């Protein structure tokens, strides 16, 4: 997700703290970075590298020794590493607490808190106290508490420290949803690379300095493009998705180059051989410098897209559907022999179903009723299978 809207800009932020002697003098230096609205950003680094500190500074909860942080005005939700739930309050009270400072009535506070907890699957644990729930539930409660103020940006300090892999992934799926559907900006400090997958950009921190910025090309959105089928997507979207599939953490420039090449090929401005040659050519000579295996895999994907498009074009030209042919395809794999009566009834049912005269339920009923009652006499399970097959043929 790339937007031009800069939300936070850090200029020469000098992260104070312990002055640990390092090879190049003192540990902490100035950090410059920008975060755009709607981004999912990871600050990666070990303990003491300054990644958490930077997060606190950007959230406005810690003051940098030097430098400045410019923001364009937003609501902030913070989830600290220790969750910081109040142990004498129930989960519901904890989540509703931030609203008390807004002057909202108790009834409204509880209603909003219950809704948010419900959306995170925590309804059953609402009246429990923090010490009685699991670490994962504590984390979800802390997230619910940050969400209740309807934040534009959520800052999370090592949210998976105390969680197992499954809980971590559930948590990151929730964050991903908040990011992609609710358009919230997410900033996370981490020391585990497993969760890079969810991020748009990753900033690597070392000794209080941000020393590398990586773009994560394999973020989940790009996979969706293939799931929805390559046919409905524009050339530009497909080029981005394909480039993503062949790069891990890469340079922005390098990625752009690959995207451009694929786009040219999809638009027909570049031949198959031309693309292959440019992909193989080293970066020094103006190519991309991919390895042979990757080149072949990429070319195959491009081929598949062209093939799918051709098939679609042919299907669109066909105006009438051959019911007899369709019946045979639907029954492929069905071993019992059908009588003429059954065949004619099946064809009729298929025709009526395609003409939207009958719906799924009625179609299944006709198929599963005994012949004597005007049906075809399939078992219910077979009727269901046939319906599924029929639907799958027309999904595209």
């Amino acid at each position, binding site marked *: 997700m790339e937007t031009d809207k800069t939300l936070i800009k850090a200029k020469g932020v000098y992260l104070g703290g312990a002055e640990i002697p*390092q090879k190049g003098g003192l540990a902490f230096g100035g950090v410059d970075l920008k975060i755009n609205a709607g981004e999912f950003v990871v600050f990666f680094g*070990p303990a003491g590298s300054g990644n958490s500190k930077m997060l606190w500074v950007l959230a406005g909860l810690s003051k940098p020794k030097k430098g400045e942080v410019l923001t364009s005005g937003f609501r902030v939700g913070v989830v600290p590493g220790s969750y910081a739930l109040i142990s004498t309050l129930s989960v519901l009270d904890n989540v509703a607490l931030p609203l008390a400072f807004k002057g909202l009535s108790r009834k409204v506070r509880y209603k909003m808190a219950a809704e948010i907890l419900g959306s995170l699957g925590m309804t059953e644990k609402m009246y429990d106290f923090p010490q009685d729930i699991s670490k994962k539930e504590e984390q979800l409660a802390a997230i619910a508490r940050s969400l209740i103020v309807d934040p534009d940006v959520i800052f999370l300090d090592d949210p998976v420290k105390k969680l*197992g892999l499954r809980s*971590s992934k559930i948590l990151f799926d929730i964050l991903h949803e908040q990011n992609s559907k609710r358009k919230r900006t997410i900033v996370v400090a981490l020391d*585990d690379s497993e969760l890079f997958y969810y991020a748009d950009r990753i900033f690597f921190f070392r000794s209080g300095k941000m*020393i*590398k910025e*990586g773009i994560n090309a394999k973020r989940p959105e790009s996979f969706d493009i293939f799931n929805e089928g390559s046919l409905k997507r524009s050339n530009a979207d497909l080029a981005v998705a394909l480039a993503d599939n062949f790069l891990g953490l890469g340079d922005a420039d390098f990625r752009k180059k690959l995207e451009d090449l694929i786009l040219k090929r999809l638009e027909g401005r570049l031949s198959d051989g031309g693309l292959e040659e440019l992909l193989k050519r080293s970066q020094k000579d103006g190519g991309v410098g991919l390895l042979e295996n990757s080149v072949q895999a990429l070319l195959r994907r491009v081929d598949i897209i062209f093939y799918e498009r051709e098939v679609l074009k042919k299907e669109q030209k066909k105006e009438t559907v051959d019911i007899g042919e369709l019946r045979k395809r639907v029954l492929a794999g069905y071993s019992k022999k059908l009588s003429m009566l059954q065949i004619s009834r099946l064809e009729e049912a298929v025709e009526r179903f395609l003409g939207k005269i009958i719906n799924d339920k009625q179609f299944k009923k006709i198929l599963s009723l005994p012949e004597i009652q005007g049906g075809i006499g399939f078992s219910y399970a077979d009727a269901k299978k046939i319906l599924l097959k029929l639907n799958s043929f027309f999904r595209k």
Partner: protein
Amino acid sequence: MMEKIYRNLVLIAENNYDLYKIISLFLEKEGFSVLRAHNGKVAELLLSIYYDELAFCILDVSLPKKYGESVLKYMKNEDKLKDIPVIMISNLKDEEDIKSLMDLGALAHIKKQKSSVHEIMNKLKEALISSGTRKINFKYGN
């Protein structure tokens, strides 16, 4: 007198999350800070960024994307990485396979198979002590 700098960062390249968590808890208790790479390519990326802070590196042999063995070879060919002690973890049964890993320059090898957590931790401790890496657990500016 110039102060001696001790390193206390460990890179764990291990795709088994539970094993990584256990090792990282142990190491953090010993005063190390930990980074995790979940595949071989990320391990190389992190090595290139954090190389001069690393006390040592724990590599699983069967990493996705790039085998631990290849990462080890890569490390031994790079000037800035070749001195970082590497402890390999694997399910290898064949002694010859293990020997070839050691020949590549690994400091020690730990078998995952049929080892309890306790045994793995003990072997890790032994390897650290024998290599002298364990001494790194000092305060800064000694």
